[in-house]
């Protein structure tokens, strides 16, 4: 089972190819150049390095949100185009789930946070439970957009050790240090940002569960309406 993974949900652009339990290659760049200019050349570089015939892929997995609206669209539209051309299924992996998967096997509560602006974070809570000698990722809090105060409050109620990761850490580290009553830690540089290898590996789990879809139906989970829709709803008294 060969899977191409792609993540362009944040500042990081990352592409990876996995085959069963092997990571064949991964290319991750955290540099201020637009994903539009970097993402596909990175796929091309990696494919050349691996002598990869795209037709041998079983599926393409992509981080489907939340994240930067534009970044998500660059990744998803690229994958939609590739999926259409290759006639291969795609797997939309929730961004926060893939981030949490970076810390596979951790006994702490895992809390990825992404800066969502407007005083909010995109976040979720995960833990890894051992079943039959294998860890499974369990979702404690489904990915959502909430205030950092609300998140820390939830974690305080759990009271268990928590490890934070994601691009929201540098933004909210001070707040967490001041307000967290549960023991906490922050993931190191090699694990704390989006990794396409996690998208591909978690995509592989979904693939085995039959959770694939066509490139046509792949949808982005923005977790947020556009500003215009939000303001219109407010005007019309909807929630």
């Amino acid at each position, binding site marked *: 089972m060969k899977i191409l993974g792609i993540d362009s949900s944040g500042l990081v652009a990352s592409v990876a190819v996995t085959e069963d339990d092997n990571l064949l290659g991964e290319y991750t760049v955290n540099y201020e150049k*637009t994903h*539009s*200019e*970097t993402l*596909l*050349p990175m*796929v*091309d570089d990696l494919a050349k390095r691996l002598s990869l015939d*795209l037709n041998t892929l079983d599926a393409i997995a992509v981080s489907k949100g939340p994240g930067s*609206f*534009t970044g998500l*669209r*660059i*990744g*998803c*539209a*690229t*994958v*939609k*185009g*590739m*999926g*259409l*051309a*290759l006639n291969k299924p795609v797997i939309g992996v929730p961004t926060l789930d893939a981030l949490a998967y970076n810390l596979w096997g951790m006994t702490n509560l895992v809390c990825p946070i992404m800066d969502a602006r407007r005083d909010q974070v995109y976040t979720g809570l995960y833990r890894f439970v051992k079943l039959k000698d294998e860890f499974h990722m369990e979702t404690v809090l489904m990915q959502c957009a909430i205030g950092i105060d609300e998140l820390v409050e939830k974690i305080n109620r759990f009271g268990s050790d928590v490890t934070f990761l994601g691009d929201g850490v540098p933004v909210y580290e001070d707040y967490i240090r001041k307000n967290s009553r549960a023991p906490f830690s922050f993931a190191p540089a090699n694990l704390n940002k989006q990794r396409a290898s996690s998208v591909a590996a978690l995509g592989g789990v979904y693939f085995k569960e039959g959770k694939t879809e066509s*490139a*046509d139906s792949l*949808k*982005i989970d*923005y977790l947020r309406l*556009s*500003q*215009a*829709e939000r303001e*219109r709803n407010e005007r019309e008294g909807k929630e």
Partner: protein
Amino acid sequence: MTSTDKEIKILAIETSCDETSAAVVVNGRDVRSNIISTQIPLHTLYGGVVPEIASRKHTERINQVIRQALDEAKMTLSDMDAIAVTYGPGLVGALLVGVSEAKGIAYAANLPLIGVHHIEGHISANYIENKDLEPPFLCLVVSGGHTHLVRVLDYGKYEILGRTVDDAAGEAFDKVARTIGLGYPGGPKIEKKATLGNPDAIDLPRAKVGGSEYDFSFSGLKSAVLNYINKAGMKGETVDPADLAASFQKAVVDVLTDHAEHAIDSFGVSEFAIAGGVASNGALRASMEEMCDRKGVKFYRPSPILCTDNAAMIGAAAYYEYIAGRRDGWDLNAVPALALGER
């Protein structure tokens, strides 16, 4: 141009504003399909195009639109010789959807990629229904985002004689339509209302601009419409929206026609074309046709469906890029303010 034995088939994609479109075009002039999925009803709720919503809708619809274009042309990707896409100018988020999609398809299908200038596409829309039209000719491009008077020197070679220094002609239509309560999109709404009014009822200015003698300005006209309404309001007079729409439309058409006529005289042009969304305006078409007839100049205008944003025109422009050997790399980016003739 040398004739090619082989038919060159191009799948073209256009997502620069609020239409998701894909087309299959053979040899630049033979349109086998031209699917346009419009978002206008959605944006009407907001009184204009909302870029974030446009980008979201493009992403949701694009694969279906592309499949429909291939199906209608009774072809598959393996029949294609290249993938073309609008990469500017336009709304950056909207452009990026088409550019990313086109790159994904071209890369995975191992096909050349050609980025196309949106305005070049509008101009090239004229090639589709006029198999005899070849450069050089003069073209007026008028749309919601652009007002350009252009000498088409050769395929892909342009000299811009004049452009708007403020609002685009279509933008003026939208703003005035909003002011007199006609709603969005302004072009068709004003045109419809104008049929009921007297175009000579209200005296509105025909602005001259300081820069190039071919430049346009429409913000003064827009202000004049506002002033007229305010003055009438203060005097307690009612404004006839039909007369206002007709007079405004005539003012725009007069300026566009005068500039085109001036350029035709100065450059000894024998062929003149119009393009872009506003080129579907009946009053503009009639005025230009009358002017061209009077001067013995051959007049070209695309059918209204080819005036609106569509991918067939992108496929037409891309063909001439293709035979000129121009290709883009996998790092092709969207360029929201791309200038005509710029790479």
